[in-house]
């Protein structure tokens, strides 16, 4: 019934089968690896390559000149580059903590059932679904000095009109407020989901032990939410590093360079000044910043050891 192979052929057959089994995982993974390489790794390598050239966009590849690290060196000499980096980091460090605070407070407040709770929670999410470009346009019109509702309100209250987007300080504040308005519900969404997954028994046990609201918050809620908070903050940082369209339609980087964020300046370099090499160098710089943020947050705070330590404490 069963064909038996001679004993001498078995090792060879097993060896071939073993080889086939050894290759199989790679064959199954190959499509995914190819896609990741094509859409993720290759663009980074290509950007790195382009960043070493003086490459005028409209003249094509024929007139590029190799400059090595020249573009990186030129960037360090460019005050506008440092200004845009400062503005971008300021944007992140002001907007994201406020979004986190608002999102966390709203999640705590709405983590209970009451009449219409589901509707309220759903409505709070609306700004996240706004297209960034529409959000920017809406805020631009709301802040318009003569026709905007904000100034109309100020006038009714007897206050003077303010040219929100015409003054460097208020324009910078305006783009941050716009971002907070649009993105704090994102924080709320993640934190509310995490809050609902905290076992109720833990809270009840703490209450039996006499813990009040603040003690429960400090000793239970926040430590248990830490991985979610860090994930939310990391996602928002990555997103905020790329913020572009809403600021572009609100201010185009002005007045002067008061809102010329890193992403806007990169776009100016590439498409305004036609310096693709310089823009690629800025993109690589942005990638390095993103990696630094990610490593800092993920490696130091989200490793299992740290989480176990925190849980133990």
């Amino acid at each position: 019934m069963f064909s038996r192979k001679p004993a001498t052929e078995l090792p060879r057959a097993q060896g071939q089968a073993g080889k086939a089994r050894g290759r199989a995982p790679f064959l199954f993974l190959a499509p995914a690896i190819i896609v990741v390489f094509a859409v993720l790794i290759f663009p980074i390598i290509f950007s790195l390559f382009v960043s070493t050239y003086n490459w005028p966009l409209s003249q094509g590849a024929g007139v590029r000149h190799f400059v090595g690290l020249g573009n990186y060196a030129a960037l360090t000499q460019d005050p506008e580059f440092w200004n845009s980096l400062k503005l971008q980091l300021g944007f992140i460090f002001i907007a994201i903590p406020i979004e986190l605070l608002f999102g966390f407070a709203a999640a705590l407040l709405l983590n209970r059932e009451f009449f219409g709770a589901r509707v309220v929670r759903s409505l709070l999410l609306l700004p996240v679904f706004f297209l960034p470009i529409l959000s920017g346009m809406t805020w631009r019109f709301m802040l318009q000095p003569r026709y905007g509702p904000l100034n109309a309100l100020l006038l009714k209250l007897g206050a003077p009109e303010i040219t929100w987007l015409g003054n460097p300080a208020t324009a910078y504040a305006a783009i941050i407020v716009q971002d907070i308005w649009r993105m704090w519900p994102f924080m709320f969404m993640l934190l509310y989901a995490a809050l609902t997954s905290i076992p109720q028994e833990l809270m009840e046990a703490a209450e039996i032990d006499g813990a009040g609201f603040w003690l429960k918050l400090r000793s239970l809620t926040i430590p248990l939410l830490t991985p979610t908070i860090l994930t939310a903050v990391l996602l928002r940082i990555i997103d905020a590093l790329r913020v572009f369209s809403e600021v572009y339609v609100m201010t185009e980087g002005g007045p002067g360079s008061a809102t010329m964020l890193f992403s806007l300046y990169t776009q100016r370099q590439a498409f305004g000044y036609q310096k693709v090499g310089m823009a690629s160098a800025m993109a690589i710089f942005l990638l390095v910043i993103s990696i630094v943020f990610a490593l800092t947050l993920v490696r130091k705070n989200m490793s299992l050891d740290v989480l176990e330590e925190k849980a133990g404490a």
Partner: protein
Amino acid sequence: MKKALIVLVFALAFASMVSAQTINVLFWDDAYPRTLMERIPEFEKATGIKVNIEILQPPQVFTKTSVSVSKDRTDYDLVCVDEGNIPLFASLMLPYDQWAPGKVFKKVDPNTVTPAMLDVAQWDGKLIGLPINGNLYVWMTRKDLIENPKYKADFKAKYGYDLGVPQTFQQMLDEGTYFYENGIVSGGFGPFNGGPAGVFGEAIFMWESYGTHFIEWVKGKPTLVVDKAKAVQGMEFYKKLMKISPKGAETMAHVERQAAFAADPKGVFTQFIWPAQIASYEDPDKSLVAGKIVYSAPPAGPAGRFAIRGTWAVNIPLASKNKDAAAEFVYWWASKDIATWLVEKNTVPARTDALTDPRFAKTKPWLAAIADSMKYAAARPRFNEVAQVQDIVKKYWIMGITGQMPCDDAMQKIIDETKDVLKKAGY
């Protein structure tokens, strides 16, 4: 039977290839190309050439041209290039004298284009494409205000001369101040503080009006030639105009200017306009001041009158595979028939015979003003690094005219940083 079917399939495929020649065209978005689009089906019917239009805001046209047109390949068979960007793209475009003769429409003689506009498409002694619209500064003043007997009497009593269309900068300031300070208008003057190219235009307008050029080509190099003292005077005068401008003047671009001039019940007394936008200001459905505007050449500064030019040229990329069809489209677009129809529709083509057609003398009062402005046409400097310089000028010009920085310091910054850009570019 089988053979016959094969022959039929090949014949159909060949016929479809021959009959459906398609050209891809990149338009800038304003009333002029949008009006033209109404008539494109006629062109398609007459020639069998299908026209695919992509219409984008001017900054995006520039970006799209930069990434889509090179020496070896192009996504478009015809692109519109703003005059400031001609140097950047000139080497990628087919010179006009190499455009094929038309099969259906006659090749357009460049001399039909108004002389003030023809210069737009010239680069390195060659005509790179064809200027297609007649866009340069024209001045708008509210007729209902300057003809009001009460305002006329009041103004004369206060200033000692007659109220009228501003002929000089001082007159513009006096009249604007009178209307603004008496609460008759929301703005005595409508500035432009939007995109870098527009602000650059305002700065060049003021500097030329005060007697100084900014950058000139000297021995084959763009060279900073600005007279700082005169430039500061121009900036200081604009600062005075900002004080009688509507709220939010610091960020006013075209949309805000139109809203202030034509949709605000009080409106603005006087400002420049690109003729391409006149159709919107004269549309009673969109404008409260339709029929109430006097058009003229810009008022004169101490050094005379200057009208900044902002014309578009149509160009065929060297890499286009449909050059003849693209040329055919331009010959149709720039023909007298279409140009005259475009004037009828309140837009402004570049052909002299259409702009000076006596039929329009009474119904299109802005045509005479455009003709007058053309006598004073002035171009913004053109060189490859102009976008960087525009950003510098915009940044410090607005800081100077809004009082965030003394005008003298702002001008010094413009000079220093422009020198740096030119030096780094190797000039």
